[in-house]
């Protein structure tokens, strides 16, 4: 990883979800004015295949080593963009997202000017953090091939059987003295009109 940050900023339209409120071109222009930003552009749908390919292409062409995606919440698509970076051998953790959809365009629908200015702030903040991001490696844990299912009604029974059939061990924990739950108390069930047990 070269020492000098070369940040790429990608501002997503998300169709009209963001671009309907936020002036995304203005945000891109603002991003270009920020320190260490080597490239900034908008994207119709950053998470789509063409959107991701555009990011990957820009990484190569502009030797980007830090990425800001201004789009939806990181709780939504952070894994998507991390995987996108990993495909072009960029460390997935040099990504910072600016949440300009859930945290901006969707909650300031009737204030496009303010929303645009807030989106600029969020991009500036993301770039400031991105500048200091460092590559990290994912931790790996062993996984015990066993599951606990809590509740022995129809849901617990079905889940336990499906898991157990794959060869994993299942501990089925039921409060009552037997299986069946509410379902067992039903006489007939719809739509088949047959016995519940």
């Amino acid at each position, binding site marked *: 990883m070269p020492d000098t940050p070369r940040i790429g900023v990608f501002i997503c339209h998300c169709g009209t979800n963001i671009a309907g409120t936020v002036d995304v071109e203005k945000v891109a222009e603002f991003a270009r004015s920020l320190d260490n930003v080597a490239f900034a552009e908008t994207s119709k749908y950053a998470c789509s295949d063409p959107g991701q390919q555009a990011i990957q292409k820009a990484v190569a062409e502009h030797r980007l080593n830090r990425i800001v995606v201004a789009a939806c919440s990181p709780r939504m698509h952070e894994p998507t963009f991390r995987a996108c970076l990993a495909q072009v051998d960029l460390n997935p953790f040099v990504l910072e997202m600016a949440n300009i959809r859930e945290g901006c365009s969707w909650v*300031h629908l009737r204030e496009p000017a303010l929303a645009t200015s807030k989106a600029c702030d969020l991009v500036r903040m993301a770039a400031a953090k991105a500048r200091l991001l460092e590559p990290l490696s994912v931790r790996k*844990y062993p996984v*015990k091939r*066993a599951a606990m299912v809590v509740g022995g009604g129809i849901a617990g029974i079905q889940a336990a*059987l*499906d*898991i157990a059939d794959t060869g994993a061990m299942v501990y089925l924990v039921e409060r009552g003295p037997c299986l*069946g739950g509410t379902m067992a*108390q039903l006489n007939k069930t719809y739509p088949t009109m047959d016995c519940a047990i």
Partner: protein
Amino acid sequence: MADVGRHPNIELLTLSEVKEVSGHVGNFRVKVKRHARYVDEKECTACGDCVEVCPQVGPDEFNFGLVHRHAIYQPFPQAIPAAFVLDMETCLGNNPRACGKCAEACEKHCINLDAVDSDVEFTVGTIVIATGMEPFDPLGMTEYGYGRMKNVITAMEFERLASSGGPTGGDIRRFSDGKTPKSIAFIQCVGSRCEGPGNSYCGNICCMNTIKDTLLLKDHWPEIDVTVYYIDLRAFGKGFEEMLKRSRQLGVRYIRGIPGEVEENEDQSLTLHVENTETGLVEQHQADMVVLATGVQPRAEAHDLNKLLSLQLHPEGFLLEAHPKLQPVDSPVRGIFYAGCAEGPKDIKETVTQASAAAGRAVRLMSQGEIAADPYTVEVNEDKCKACGLCLKVCPYGAFEWEKGAKAEPIEALCAGCGTCAAECRFEAITPHQFSDAQIVAQVEASLSQDPEQKAVVFACNWCSYAAADTAGVSRFQYPANQVLIRTMCSGRVDEKFILRAFELGAPIVLVSGCHFVDCHYIDANRQTVRRVEKLWDKLESWGIRPARLQLEWISSAQGQRFQKTMEELERLRREVTPREIAHTRRILKQKLHPPKPKKQARRKGVAAHA
């Protein structure tokens, strides 16, 4: 059910409760309390010799107390495990032993009256929560007379009446006189879609369950007059509309209107007062029996489990999924999944579908042998570490090696990445990956680089408050555009210096927000948040800075509306802060945070005085 009983990979633990869960995805350590059954599950052949001699009876829970069972009993004939169980509450007692007839009658000696509860411990990679629902109890809705009038029953009681294994052997009879009713009225939405006693949401299954009951009645007792009182009929599933059509064709009357009151007549039949919204008239109808189509609600006892696992609840009380659309069976905690009505009211087909989905998600995690986790651990700078051990003291996971006088060493496998240690370390010796001091301070500085007096800086924890902001967004709850959010994994990460830096740069208001206490995703790291914020309030006050400018709020991920209200309140508070006050704060903080270096002479004087 029988498949579970004989599956080689399933260990069925009945009469059991989860008491403790520690560890994390891939490696949850579970402790279960297994209550004594007093009957050897493997040896019992359910012959029933014990029941014949048992002198004690109690209400039969399986039949909703409509009949009695003995203290030793089998819940229902097809029960798995197919072994009897002794209810010690109903039994004359084993300490001192008052009776013991069952044990004497059992030729196989399966009954052990001295059996005790036991703890079972095991380790699992994933957990599926399928704690189910309970039917709404209509006792509180006095207008329907349930509990007072013998012939007003619930839908579940109707199920037992109609069942060949039920108290009447499947005959529909009135409780008052044992006669077959000539007319039955079903009242829909009891405890659903209402304010007051009951729940605001739709029970999901009640419409179709009633339609099913009407078909059953018309198939077996075509002479019974059946009427259904409803608000809307929600028959939206595959094949459901056809069932409704058939019910109407068989002569079931559907009246759009919910009775306001049920009155008992002298012969214990019932009069229903209802506004028929199709005719616009208030009508009186007679029925020999009234069935209340009671809704579905979360099980009260499931809440203990939620606390144990740090899960989240929807305001309606059902379990909150990680994402309502894209991760409908995932809990917010990795490796824990939902199946069935614990997540929300649903019918059997949907329950089975969701259970298979949950199983699929769990197997997907377990099939690789190992899983990847975010590298949000911490690094300790040995040069800066003063070996004080505070990091270990505040860490909810005890994820440090430390002994008095020794430098702290993080234990990566135990660290969950809340960052509390870094916020508490007085020597800036701890750097959390992806959420370092420098990175967060850079965000604070960037957020306030223009028009700082217009901004409120909001620190939001990833799991609850930030998720609540997302919920507000998804719900399009509008709020003022003056706030900027800085995400940390836990509110415990929010260092005093981030807050002071924000005030120093001219922020009028700072909010620290996290999960409600019981919801903290890092056990109880947010208790450190409170302690720290309270300390800072005192400090601000002593410095002449209004403590109200630092706000603390708990917002859970489902509380989009609370997030919106909090943002509105922040904006109100922001407007109260004058430019003069901001300038004053900046002056004070400049003095306090960057005091001028004492002159050499002065220092010498100090040393002399000390000596």
